[in-house]
C-alpha cells in the first residue's frame, strides 16, 4: 500500500519535473528568439548607421551655368578691391594678422568660411585694413579621406592662383563647390573647372605655375609649421597683434568670437 502511494508520488513528481522542464525549454526558446531578434535588429541599425556615416550624402561639387556665375559674382563681391599677395588677404601693414590653418576639403572650414564669421570679418575688418588673413595649408579631412595625395594637389593649385593674386578667389570657390570629403573628387578637371571660374585668372599661366615644385614644397612647409606650433584640427585661427597672440577657441567661430580674439591682441 505504502509502496503504491510512494510510486504514485514519484510518478507525480516525475510528471511535474517533466512539465517544468518543458516549460523551461519553451521559455528558453522564447528568450533565445527575443535575444536573437534584438541582436539582428541591432546589427541592421548599426550597418545602416555606418553606411549613412560613410556615404555623407553631401551634394556639392563643381557648378556650371547660372549657378556657377552666381557663385563667382558672390565671391567677387566679397573680395573685390581687397589687396592680395600670394596666400595673404588684406593690407600687408594691418595691425592684426589672422593665420587660418585650413584644408580645402574640410567641411568645418567650409562652414566657417561660408556660414561662420569669416565673410563678415572680410567685408568689415579686412576691407577696412584692420586685419589681414594668411591661409596656411594643414591636412585634416583630405588625409582622413580616400586619397591623401589630393592634398598637395589642391593646395598647390590655390597657391598657383596666388601667383596671380587670386588665391582667395580660388579658395572661396573651392569652399563653395566643395564635394563630399569621403570621395576622391579633386581631379584635374575639377581644379581646371574652378580655375576657369576665377575672374581675371590667366588659365595658361596658372596651369604652368602648377608644375612648379616649389608650390608643393610650400604646402609641406606650411603643414610642418602647423604641426610644430601644435595645430591639430582645421580651421585653426591664430590671431597676432600688438598685444600678443591668441587662438579662436571654437570649431566654427562666429563674427562675435572673432571680434573677441581681435580685441585681445589689439
Amino acid at each position, binding site marked *: 500500500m505504502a509502496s503504491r502511494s510512494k510510486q504514485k508520488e514519484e510518478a507525480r513528481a516525475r510528471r511535474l519535473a517533466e512539465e517544468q522542464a518543458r516549460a523551461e525549454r519553451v*521559455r528558453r526558446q522564447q528568450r533565445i528568439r527575443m535575444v536573437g531578434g534584438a541582436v539582428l535588429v541591432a546589427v541592421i541599425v548599426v550597418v545602416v548607421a555606418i553606411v549613412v556615416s560613410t556615404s555623407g550624402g553631401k551634394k556639392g561639387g563643381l557648378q556650371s551655368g547660372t549657378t556657377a556665375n552666381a557663385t563667382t559674382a558672390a565671391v567677387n563681391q566679397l573680395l573685390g578691391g581687397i589687396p592680395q599677395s600670394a596666400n595673404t588677404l588684406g593690407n600687408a601693414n594691418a595691425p592684426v594678422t589672422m593665420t587660418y590653418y585650413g584644408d580645402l576639403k574640410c567641411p568645418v572650414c567650409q562652414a566657417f568660411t561660408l556660414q561662420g564669421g569669416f565673410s563678415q570679418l572680410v567685408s568689415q575688418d579686412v576691407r577696412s585694413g584692420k586685419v589681414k588673413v594668411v591661409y596656411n595649408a594643414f591636412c585634416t579631412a583630405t588625409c582622413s579621406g580616400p586619397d591623401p595625395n589630393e592634398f598637395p594637389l589642391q593646395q598647390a593649385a590655390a597657391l598657383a592662383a596666388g601667383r596671380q593674386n587670386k588665391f582667395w578667389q580660388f579658395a572661396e570657390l573651392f569652399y563653395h563647390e566643395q564635394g563630399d570629403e569621403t570621395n576622391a573628387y579633386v581631379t584635374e578637371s575639377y581644379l581646371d573647372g574652378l580655375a576657369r571660374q576665377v575672374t581675371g585668372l590667366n588659365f595658361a599661366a596658372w596651369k604652368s605655375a602648377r608644375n612648379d615644385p616649389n608650390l608643393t614644397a610650400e604646402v609641406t612647409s606650411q603643414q610642418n609649421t602647423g604641426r610644430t606650433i601644435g595645430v591639430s584640427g582645421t580651421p585653426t585661427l591664430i590671431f597676432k597683434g600688438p598685444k600678443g597672440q591668441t587662438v579662436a577657441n571654437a570649431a566654427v567661430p562666429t563674427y562675435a568670437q572673432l571680434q573677441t580674439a581681435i580685441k585681445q591682441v589689439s
Partner: protein
Amino acid sequence: MTTTTAAGTGVPARDQGDRRLRIAIGVVCLIGIAVATYLTYTHYAGLNVVCPVSGGCETVQKSVYSKLDGIPVAVLGLAGYIAILISLAVRNELGRVAGFGMALVGCMFSLYLTYREIFTIKAICPWCVSSAVMMTLLTILTAIRVLRVEPGTVAPSAPAKTVPRAERRRTERRQAARR
C-alpha cells in the same frame, strides 16, 4: 518548492540580483548622460572640449565622423543613454531585451567610431573612448540581466511586497494600544 532568499531580506535572491544589476546599469547610464550632455553642450555652444590628450578631441570633434546625417553623435549617445535608463522602468522581458538591444547598438557604433578614430582620423578623444567603454559595460550588464533572470520571477510591474512605513507605524501603534 523552496525559494532562495537574500540573507535577512526576505526578497528572493534572483530579484535581489536583478535589483543590483538595475542599479549598476542606472549608474553607468547616468555617467554616460553626463559625458554626452557635456559633448552636446560644447558642440552647440561652439566650444572646444577640455581634452587631456593634446588636440585629439578637437581633431575628432571637427571630423566628418562627429555627425551622423547632420546629427551630432553626442546627441545620439545622449538619446541612447536616456532610452536605456527608461527601459529599466519597464520591468518585464520586453524591457530587458529592449535595453540590451539599445546597448548593443550603442556599443557596436561606438566601437566603429573608435576604429575610425584610430585608423582614419588618427586621433583619440578620451571622452569618446570613455563613452564607448560605458556602452560596452552596459551591453555586458544588460546581457547578464536578460540571460539570468527567469521570465515570471520578476513580475511585470509587481507591487513591492513591503508594507509602507506609515502603515507599519499605524499597526505598531494599534498593537501597542491593545497591550
